């Protein structure tokens, strides 16, 4: 990226370049930038996500010129945009549908990373920054949804801000702080508008960091192999500029189809009723892109006694103290052998384990005295944990092979996880009765098991397929 100052070239371009190396930077990152020669269409989604961010900021700024962040005016000002402002309907539908498109694209982008192992060394920080982008996106989308001040805006805001009340001791103070009052009201709407305006620009900054981290080692690719030489790479322009633009075209067709023919298809009609703090809608649901998380939030309907947590902690400390005993019990083959491989080679001393053990005993004693993690807090921790868990993924996945193309078992488990996410989303859209709470609980359990149990063990027992010698070899053999 950084260039040592060179001799000043003649002409305007040379004059600017000598003072501000903008042309060489663009050239390095968009033209000559060496890119793996075998990227498939799943590698389009990063640039499309960037396009979505630009579309949201552009339409959002013009919407903000007509919107009024005041509980008495907000709903009417959105209707004013829809009916009176020139092309207001277009800007609002582009913005509302654009949010859904942004999430569709981003989720595909994330699942691409999961399938091809893009989170593995040396791209862990790239993956972390991606998760931070997802979290900021979610906060932005949530606050944006509150702005029209419809029934679902208001009650969605109430339910989500009330989540923070689940935390012991500080919970109530935190919710009062978030609200700026004693309920979701004018101060809440105002600050949500300010933050909804600010966060997309923060997002631009984080996206730039994401790109810097990406360009450090370059894109991963469908084989998951590191590039071994120039024969594995091609310049970004014209090869991937063309491919990206083709992707943009397909994206715009789907986006336009939704905006012009089904702008409210993904929305909830209840949000066309003005907010009423005295009447709760019969069935509160978030927008589709939050449904799997909403299902996890509601899946935990029972209190978790502390003694269970305490026993787990004590069990863990005993394993660290007597790894050889446990190892002998587990044997050294199959799944049990894989479990055993996580035991420490040397037994931990009592002095190291004392704090862990005391915590365990305190939990057991308080647990027997009746202390528990209330179901509400457990649900909140589960929901936030489902995303925070992704930060540990580069270390939970113990397989040295990146791409699922060479991982015969993981390849299927990946699709099971996709189905699990869809099932959770469906459960999240349903009222919590009948079989849905049970299905949500099983789906939530599987989601966590996938990352915490299956991935660490699978890396130890899965027999991966032989890897091609290089990217070039993989591509030319096929042809």
């Amino acid at each position, binding site marked *: 990226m950084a260039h040592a100052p060179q001799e000043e070239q003649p002409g305007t371009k040379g004059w600017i370049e000598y003072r501000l190396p903008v042309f060489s930077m663009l050239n390095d990152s968009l033209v000559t930038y060496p890119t793996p020669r075998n990227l498939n269409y799943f590698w389009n989604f990063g640039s499309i996500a960037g396009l979505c961010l630009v579309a949201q900021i552009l339409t959002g700024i013009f919407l903000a010129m007509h919107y009024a962040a005041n509980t008495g005016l907000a709903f009417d000002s959105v209707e004013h945009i829809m009916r009176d402002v020139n092309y207001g309907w277009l800007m609002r539908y582009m913005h509302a549908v654009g949010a859904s498109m942004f999430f569709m694209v981003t989720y595909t982008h994330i699942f691409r990373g999961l399938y091809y192992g893009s989170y593995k060394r040396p791209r862990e920080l790239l993956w972390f920054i991606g998760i931070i982008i997802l979290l900021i996106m979610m906060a932005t989308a949530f606050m944006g949804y509150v702005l029209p001040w419809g029934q679902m805006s208001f009650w969605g805001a109430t*339910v989500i801000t009330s989540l923070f009340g689940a935390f012991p001791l500080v919970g109530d103070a935190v919710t009062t702080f*978030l609200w700026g009052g004693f309920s979701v009201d004018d101060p809440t709407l105002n600050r949500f508008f300010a933050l909804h305006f600010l966060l997309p620009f923060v997002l631009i900054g984080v996206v730039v960091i994401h790109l810097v981290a990406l360009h450090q080692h370059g894109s991963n690719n469908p084989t998951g192999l590191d590039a071994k030489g120039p024969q594995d790479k091609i310049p970004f322009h014209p090869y991937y500029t063309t491919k990206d633009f083709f992707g943009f075209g397909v994206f715009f067709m789907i986006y336009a189809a939704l905006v012009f023919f089904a702008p409210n298809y993904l929305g909830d009609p209840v949000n066309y009723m003005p907010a009423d*703090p*005295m009447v709760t809608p019969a069935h509160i649901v978030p927008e589709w892109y939050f449904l799997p998380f909403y299902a996890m939030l509601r899946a935990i*309907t029972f209190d978790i006694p502390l003694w269970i947590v305490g026993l787990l902690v004590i069990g863990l400390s005993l394993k660290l103290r007597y790894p050889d005993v446990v190892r002998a019990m587990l044997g050294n083959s199959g799944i049990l052998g894989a479990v055993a491989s996580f035991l420490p080679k040397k037994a931990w001393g009592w002095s190291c384990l004392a704090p862990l053990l005391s915590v365990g005993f305190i939990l057991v004693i308080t647990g027997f005295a009746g202390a528990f993690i209330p179901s*509400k807090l457990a649900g909140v921790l589960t929901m936030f944990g489902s995303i925070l868990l992704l930060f540990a993924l580069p270390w939970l996945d113990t397989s040295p092979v990146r791409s699922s193309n060479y991982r015969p078992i993981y390849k299927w488990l990946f699709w099971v996880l996709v189905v699990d996410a869809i099932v959770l989303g469906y459960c999240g859209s349903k009222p919590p009765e009948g079989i849905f709470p049970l299905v949500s609980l099983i789906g939530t359990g599987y989601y966590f098991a996938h990352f915490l149990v299956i991935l660490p063990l699978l890396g130890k027992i899965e027999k991966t397929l032989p890897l091609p010698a290089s990217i070039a070899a993989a591509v030319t053999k096929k042809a």
Partner: protein
Amino acid sequence: MSADHATTNAPDSAPRRDFLILTAQAMGAVGGAALVWPLIDSMNPSADVLAMASTEVDISAIAEGQEIKVVWRGKPVFIRHRTAKNIEEAKAVDVTTLRDPEPDSARVQKGKEQWLIMVGVCTHLGCIPLGGQAGDFGGWFCPCHGSAYDSSGRIRKGPAPKNLAIPPYTFTSDTKIKIG
């Protein structure tokens, strides 16, 4: 003069430099915190929001068995004129079996047992429970996630962790109350 320079620049003056750097950093941190706190505190409830924090209600028109909903701090407050049967049922419950154990006497004022005054916000995720003896316990039922409260507003079934909250209130006369 030159001798002075020699001592201040000597290696053994490093502690002095460390001290200056540390105190400067500490002052910077204090200054930073002093700047950030007003910004954070500005998001807490403002003076006018706090000033609107009490509500007066005339309860003379509420017949026995009826219930009204009033607004206090932007939230609904349920005021129910309980029947003798309601009170009887609420008192008959074995307190130790409850998730949030509270006797009925702790939820009403002495001598005014017929008046149950509660914040009408489900302690689960903030929905408004339905009144009119809804649910299985002659009290309230939250349609969002299925919590049921009894005729004393105590949680009996469903995901809510706590009983419906009792706001601070006083009887200013036999027919008037002041909430907040």
